[in-house]
């Protein structure tokens, strides 16, 4: 769950106010961190987490296909009853949806003020509450 691992550079603008820019993976229990965050999420910052989760998902997915082959009655009459159909479909569908973001983004994304200037930060009522 760490963008640092995947090279996501968004939001790292030099001018942005960032009181605690970490140099590399954040350490367990950094200053000011909520105890619940340390308990639930800090282990996700491990270098191995991303690869470990991928491996776990691949192994789990393989096991699910094996279970499906053994436990679920299947026929070869229709494509959706083949073991592994749902896994392959899920992988392809999500990849297709995500990869479409490249050409569609280039085609359809316009500047923030394309329709009108966005509201200034703090302009909205209620921010003071």
């Amino acid at each position: 769950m760490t963008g640092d691992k995947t090279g996501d550079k968004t939001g790292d603008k030099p001018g942005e106010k960032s009181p605690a820019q970490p140099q590399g993976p954040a350490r367990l229990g950094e200053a000011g961190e909520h105890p619940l965050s340390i308990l639930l999420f800090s282990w996700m910052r491990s270098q191995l987490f991303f690869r470990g989760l991928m491996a776990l998902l691949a192994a789990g997915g393989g096991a699910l296909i094996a279970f499906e082959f053994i436990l679920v009655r299947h026929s070869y009459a229709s494509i959706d009853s083949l073991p592994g159909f749902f896994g392959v479909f899920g992988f392809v569908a999500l990849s297709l949806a995500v990869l479409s973001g490249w050409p569609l983004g280039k085609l359809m994304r316009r500047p923030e003020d394309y329709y009108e200037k966005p509201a200034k930060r703090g302009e909205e009522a209620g921010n003071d509450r």
Partner: protein
Amino acid sequence: MTVDRLLDFAVTINPGFFVIAAALIAALAKDVATRAVALLGGPAIALVVLLYPPVAGMEVSRETFLGFDLALYRPDSLSLTFGFGFVLAAMLGGIYSLHRRDRMQDSAGLVYAGSALAAVFAGDLISLVLFAELATLASAVLVFARRTGPAYRAGLRYLAIQSIAGLALLAGAALYGIEKNTFVLAELGGLWNGVLVGVLDLSQPGAMLIFAGVGMKAAFPLVHNWLTDAYPNTTETGGVVMSPYTTTLAVYLLMRFFAGVDGLIWIGAAMTVYPVFFAVMENDLKKVLSYSTNNQIGFMVCAVGIGTPLALNGAAAHAVAHIIFKGLLFMTMGAVQLRLGTTKATELGGLHRTMPWTALACLIGAASISALPFFAGYSSKAMIMTAAETGPNLFPVWLALLFASAGVLEHSGIKIPFFAFFSHDSGKRPQEAPFNMLLAMGLSAALCLAIGFSPGWFYRLMPFRDQALEYLALDLFSTAHVIQQLELLAFAVLAFMALKWARLYPPERPGVILDVEWLWRKGAPGLISAVAWPAGAPVRVLGAATAWSIARVLVLARQVFAADGLVARKLPLSATAVWTLAILGIVTAISLFS
């Protein structure tokens, strides 16, 4: 017993009226306690009334107004399902809003919830349409309540589109009622499997108008942008209060009026698919949730079109479950908006460090909307998927729904929690959400888990209860269903991680994504200017000629009458005498010969 008498009296009143009455108290409330009583008390009384419904299908309250028969309160299994969802949403929204001292939003939110609730229990076309329109007006106030320029303009656009939809509904209801000589729903159509659904005949012009109006409110394709325009422009509480009602009420109306209409299958299937692509590109996470709402409503619309008891149970179950888990996701984004003033993915990330409870709630909402087994979305969407899978000639539709299921995992299951709370560290360390917000999120998350782990109580609320319980016993947690759903989700998450690892995942970028709204926000104004320019050419030429003439006259007048002008010049005495004689001669000549 006074309590019994009160209860006996209360159960004869449309529960929406209690919530609307609470709105009046909220509008006048100055202290926190009164606000809390209004925000929670009205929905709580409505909940009690729902728990003790009179005989289902009976018109409890029937009035005559201006010669029309009105059935103000007609509870049945369908209205009770939706009513239960609306009351829960009102209570959760009330708790969530307690930190914000804004009487306008409090009262508008309660009128909105109460009107929507009153509409689902209305037993005639007239009161149903009037309550639906009151709900629309109140919801527009929630957009204006952000009190920014863009929100104001978004509110006007919202109001314009909803007014067109409302007029179509009103005209359709009038035409249909006059044609059939009654406005009472029970007299317009018969029971189907014991429930009053699909009562309108779509071949009638009035029904077509109602279909168009309801379709706009359900955010059908091409008229969906009111949703993605208005919802992100609300305050942190406004989004939560708005998310459950308008579109869900439209799903209720589709069930009541048009269940089994084949066209809805394809409209619904389209609604599930195209928002996936927009949500992938979108940077504003509240807008992603709006597209996600469009996508989820598509599942329900498709199920209404399939029209079997299983499909209609699925539509109703998904409508109620969606109210809860989408409300939860809006709550988490509202908390982020309150603390940071933005919900743009490019400005967020790493917030779990200081907002872990909100992050946890978001993960539960994400798991629910992704239909992970033992979470709310699984219990509700499974019925729709099974209905599509087993329906005749619906294989392409089922494939579209399956694609949309993977898509919703991407944009609501992964993108929302990942970019807001994990992903890169934005360096921002906001305070955790206020206690009332956390409480509302906690209760919503608990409901998501309760529906997922123990769906029996939830299935008993469904309009076709026996069929729902049969599905629960035989199919919901069958080995095949659980394994196949887990397989779909596991490999979809794997695909996401593989794309991130290979740096093929499109990075979030600021900007707006063009959609159909371009037509009325840029296209139409541009077209009007382009057409108006040549049409105005003669007027512009005439104006220019007039201006030139006036300017010339002024120049000439100045030349004549200025201090050094023609008339100010000194003339010699002889010239004056000659001119005087000449004028005298002309006058004499005229008088002699006339």
